[in-house]
């Protein structure tokens, strides 16, 4: 048996220490720990690597602090479009979804594409149909809305209106 291991990420970029209070920093650490624990518990119980990464990413998607699922940012049109992907190293099976809104856990929609279709990537209505067919829970606009992401959108749109060049790499990051 191989000794199992797992890693997670919750995004990268310019991190403004002035905005990152000790309380908020601890929330980020707690969110990451929860994801690690979910993945570790899965592996400890004999689950597969695919099960473990699914479990870990679902926790991060459920946490509004992170830019995925419930914490997703807004497009310039004030809507949310989410992307997700999963790949199984044992078989090279892969599934991905792009530009979707609805499934609470887009990674599970990607996994449904991998496991229930002959395709690697689906977008639009058919991606959502696969997610519905898999019985995945959906959320409405209220579920996915967070004030901080909305405020970030307004800030970015205002910056564009004033013609200021946006060189902050954090704004180009997922």
């Amino acid at each position, binding site marked *: 048996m191989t000794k199992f291991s797992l890693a997670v990420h919750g995004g990268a970029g310019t991190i403004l220490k002035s905005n990152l209070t000790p309380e908020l920093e601890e929330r980020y650490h707690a969110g990451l720990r929860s994801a*690690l624990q979910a993945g570790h518990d899965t592996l400890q119980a004999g689950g*597969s*690597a695919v099960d473990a990464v699914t479990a870990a990413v679902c926790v*991060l998607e459920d946490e509004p602090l992170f830019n995925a699922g419930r914490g997703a940012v807004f497009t310039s049109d004030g809507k949310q479009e*989410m992307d997700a992907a999963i790949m199984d190293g044992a078989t090279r099976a892969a599934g991905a979804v792009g530009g979707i809104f609805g499934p609470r856990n887009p990674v599970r929609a990607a996994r449904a594409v991998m496991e229930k279709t002959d395709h690697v990537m689906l977008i639009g209505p058919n991606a959502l149909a696969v997610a519905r067919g898999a019985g995945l829970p959906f959320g409405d606009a209220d579920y996915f809305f967070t004030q901080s992401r909305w405020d970030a959108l307004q800030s970015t749109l205002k910056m564009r209106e004033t013609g200021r060049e946006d060189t902050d790499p954090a704004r180009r990051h997922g």
Partner: protein
Amino acid sequence: TVGAVACDGYGNIAAATSTGGMTAKSPGRIGDTPIIGAGTFADNATCAVSGTGHGEVFIRYTAAAEIAARMRHAGQSLAQAADHVVMQDLALHDGSGGLIAVDAQGNVTMPFNCEGMYRGKVTEAGDLETFIYR
């Protein structure tokens, strides 16, 4: 962008990534996350990778697949290959960001070329470690 990579007790590896994209992105813009080989990749023979950062650059340099290629063709270790892609291929071409990767021996690496990256890892012993800055 969030993601996870894992190596299970049977030596099988996997990667998953999920994102809302970037703030005020154009409707219909797709970043690297769902592009297999750019932001997400897994192959037991080499590595499993999940990326986060400037997605367009990750796509142009097929970042995740490039790490696997370096391991397969150049014989580099997981850490060497990932470090080269993040610190040279991406960093030298405005590709700010980072990634997490694991191989089938359970080795983990988490390089990034920006100020910080929310990340963490856990071993079989259950030792959880989380980080934000360098």
